[in-house]
């Protein structure tokens, strides 16, 4: 059991310093001569005053309370928590990239622009698309870009009636949230018994009001939408566009391409499929690739090449506009580029194959005790803890917490919404068979514990830095910043 760590503010003592700052290298004038005193701040922000070594100890100490991929399996479904290659980190920190100012003229940014241009082409090839924007900073922002592209496309054809976007009931929460943000109405479609989009539900929803369909593939159950060609045809025939949430591309890359399935727009998650680290919440990158007919509407600026040199391309009169303050999460693009060039064409396919193999293996080990209501998925499977709960009273939440005691992160739980007591599990391709076995053994042991000693499970976790935390209390008695009231 870990020790409680005071906040950095409690470690502060007036007059202590963590780092020093250069003195002005020019003749100095009193501050009041530079800035009118009515603008000056009376009291400085109460930032901590802590020596460097203590800052290092503080953040080292709290870091040790985190689970992370470099420790053990992190099977969060839909998140693709694969290994983050160390070379990527080195490359993003090269001074030619890290030190590059976004307003540097193109002639001083040829390396960055060239890398972006090439990465765009590689990603278009993987996606089977014609054009791309690297600007979106994450998946959700890629979705916003994509739905705004739908809007611009229809308007460009003089069609302003299309107010609705179709989304299956298994979709990730960002899909409906994005559709609303883009000013469209969400229409939820049913999934069928196989966990796939119900074609009747689709047919009856399709009409001249529909801007398009957002369909994750494989979907959030890990199930491939095998009727995708029919679906695309139906949507296109009614004048709509096909959007793929590409969060699950790890199952497909090198094997099948969104562009070949009839999709018009896809966002890729470089922080999932392309190995860039999650950083405890971000940053990510969510490039959006499209078919040629949507290219005129992509965000500005793009990157163009002319006579062997590269430049930002602002000349897109029909563009939806700018979606990021500059050109996107460039440092993340460097990492993904490094990864993709190292994998090469064979590595891309091997990666998808192993991601699916690993999941199938794990499913084979688990499905007897943790049933798969919609069957085994491709790169991930969604198990149900409903039977276990009925038999033992132990909920999926308890199983997840108990897994933490075994040294693993839990899967994504209670999502997708259409599976009761869901455990959405994605092992990724970078895990060995032994690690998958260790994880399966842990889950099976927990199932046994649920039967013989349920309180061990319902009281979990026991071996973590803190035990179960009271989320209700956090919401009722808001404490979202350190209060300096107790300071001397």
């Amino acid at each position, binding site marked *: 059991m870990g020790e409680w760590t005071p906040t950095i503010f409690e470690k502060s003592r007036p007059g202590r310093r963590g780092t020093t700052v250069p003195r002005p290298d020019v003749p100095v004038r009193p501050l009041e001569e530079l800035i009118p005193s009515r603008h000056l701040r009376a009291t400085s922000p109460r930032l901590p005053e802590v020596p460097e070594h203590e800052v290092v100890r503080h953040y080292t100490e709290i870091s040790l309370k985190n689970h992370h991929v470099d420790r053990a399996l992190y099977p969060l479904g839909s998140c693709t928590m694969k290994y983050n290659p160390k070379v990527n980190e080195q490359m993003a920190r090269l001074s030619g990239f890290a030190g590059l100012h976004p307003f540097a003229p193109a002639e001083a940014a040829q390396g960055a622009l060239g890398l972006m241009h090439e990465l765009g082409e590689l990603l278009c090839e993987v996606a089977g698309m014609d054009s791309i924007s690297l600007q979106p900073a994450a998946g959700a922002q890629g979705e916003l870009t994509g739905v705004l592209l739908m809007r611009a496309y229809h308007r460009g054809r003089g069609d302003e009636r299309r107010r609705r976007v179709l989304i299956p009931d298994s979709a990730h929460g960002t899909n409906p949230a994005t559709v609303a943000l883009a000013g469209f109405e969400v229409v939820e479609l049913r999934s069928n018994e196989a966990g796939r989009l119900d074609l009747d539900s689709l047919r009856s929803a399709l009409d001249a009001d529909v801007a398009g369909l957002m369909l994750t593939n494989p979907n959030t159950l890990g199930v491939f939408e095998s009727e995708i060609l029919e679906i695309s045809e139906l949507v296109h025939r009614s004048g709509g566009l096909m959007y793929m949430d590409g969060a699950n591309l790890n199952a497909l890359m090198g*094997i099948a391409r969104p562009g070949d399935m009839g999709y018009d727009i896809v966002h890729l998650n470089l922080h999932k499929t392309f190995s860039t680290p999650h950083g405890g919440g971000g940053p990510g990158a969510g490039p959006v690739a499209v078919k040629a007919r949507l290219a005129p509407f992509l965000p500005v600026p793009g990157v163009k090449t002319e006579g062997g040199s590269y430049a930002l391309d602002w000349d897109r009169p029909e563009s939806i506009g700018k979606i990021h303050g500059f050109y996107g999460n460039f440092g993340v693009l460097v990492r993904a580029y490094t990864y993709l060039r190292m994998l090469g064409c064979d590595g891309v*396919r091997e990666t998808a194959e192993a991601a699916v193999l690993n999941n199938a293996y794990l499913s084979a080990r688990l499905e007897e005790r943790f049933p798969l209501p919609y069957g085994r998925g491709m790169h991930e499977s969604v198990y149900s803890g409903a039977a276990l709960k009925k038999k033992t009273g132990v909920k999926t939440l308890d199983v997840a917490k108990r897994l933490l005691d075994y040294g693993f992160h839990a899967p994504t739980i209670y999502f997708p919404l259409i599976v009761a007591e869901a455990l959405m599990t994605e092992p990724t391709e970078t895990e060995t068979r032994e690690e998958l076995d260790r994880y399966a053994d842990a889950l099976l042991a927990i199932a046994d514990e649920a039967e013989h000693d349920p309180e061990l499970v319902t009281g979990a976790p026991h071996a973590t830095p803190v035990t179960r935390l009271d989320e209700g209390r956090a919401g009722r008695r808001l404490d979202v910043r350190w209060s300096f009231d107790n300071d001397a």
Partner: protein
Amino acid sequence: MSYVPHSDVDRRAMLAAIGVSSVRELFSDIPAAIVRDGPLDLPEALSEWEAIRLVAGHASRNPELACFAGGGIYDHHVPAAADHLIRRSEFYTAYTPYQPEVSQGTLQAIYEFQTMICELTGMDVANASMYDGATATAEAVLMAISATRRRQVVLAGHLHPYYRRVITTYTQGLDIELRMAGAGREGLVEPAGLAEVGRETACIVVQSPNFLGLIEEVEPLADRAHEAGALLVCVVADPVSLALIRSPGEQGADIAAGEGQPFGNTPSFGGPVVGLFAAREKFIRKMPGRIVGGTEDTEGRRGYVLTLQTREQQIRRGKATSNICTNQGLNALAATIHLALIGREGLRQVAETSAQHAHYAASRIAELDGYELLHPGSPFVREFAVRTPGDPQAIVRRGLERGLLAGVSLSRFPGIGAPNGLLLAFTEKRTLEEIDLLIDVLRRG
């Protein structure tokens, strides 16, 4: 190379356990018509060394320059310990803290980040980060619309042109009217000029220091907004300024949105950086993004969790306050650690050294033939615009030959109406020698 660990023996054993004879069988749900029979048209795999050589080659085509460019991204020193700590696997290879019992490191750091952002901005509550300053500002506009149930937004004065573009993008599908209220002759917003503010106005958006580096009089704008029942959104694209000048909170802002890049994050061609978002406490349930709160575990020990999640897409779906999910967590951590290292006095010194450099350079440039400050009467912290005798883009190009990024040519932004303007920013990293060189580049015109 790929990062797949399996040998052929592993693969065979796993296939046997699954009960299939080949990996391809696992893909049988994909219709044959769309399964590729050949490889993708991608380059051959590279070894790690080959990849390093290739990527470093790209990097070497971006020359290292002494940077006098700002415009929302500033070239400050990031302490070695900050970068060292964010390279810890425990931080950078973790996901969003969905299981708080094994994410206390990330959660506590965010709680500290929120506190620091509140201190800097003078606001009550802050979130765990947005993508960047531009999207934070767009989300602030959306929040003001939702909080007031009004549909008009007044973008006042010299708001960063890219932020303005992102706001336009974010609001294009919604029935929202964006009104631009230009700056006055001094480069600052004139409250008397805000005729459009009225009963339909959701918020006034003002950036201070503004895009030209000038310090706005925010308080009268807040009063103007509040008289009309609207909110004031104060945009901070240069957070280092907050060490010296009055905070958005002190000046009556309801929401502060901005960019945190100078804290802990390198310019990196504009991303990844870190969007800041803070507000008055009464708006907390309308805020976008993750928020961390303190609580207790079953044994009464303090701990942290993601809180007020019913605002967010994973619960509220189509009715969420925002669609954001992944944010800029590691960049927020870098900012937190940098601010912890530099501390209260250190940040003031960074800001003051930067301001001393800028004011010294301004007075020297004003003496050059053909040069003048664009707005000589208006106060600035460490960034200002000058009128150049010749084409500012040509000046920037000549600077490159001398190893300088000699500012940002305002001819890039027709909306600003200063085709002969050059925007210059200064940090603690610039030396007298570099400033002399800059003056020489300018003198030669």
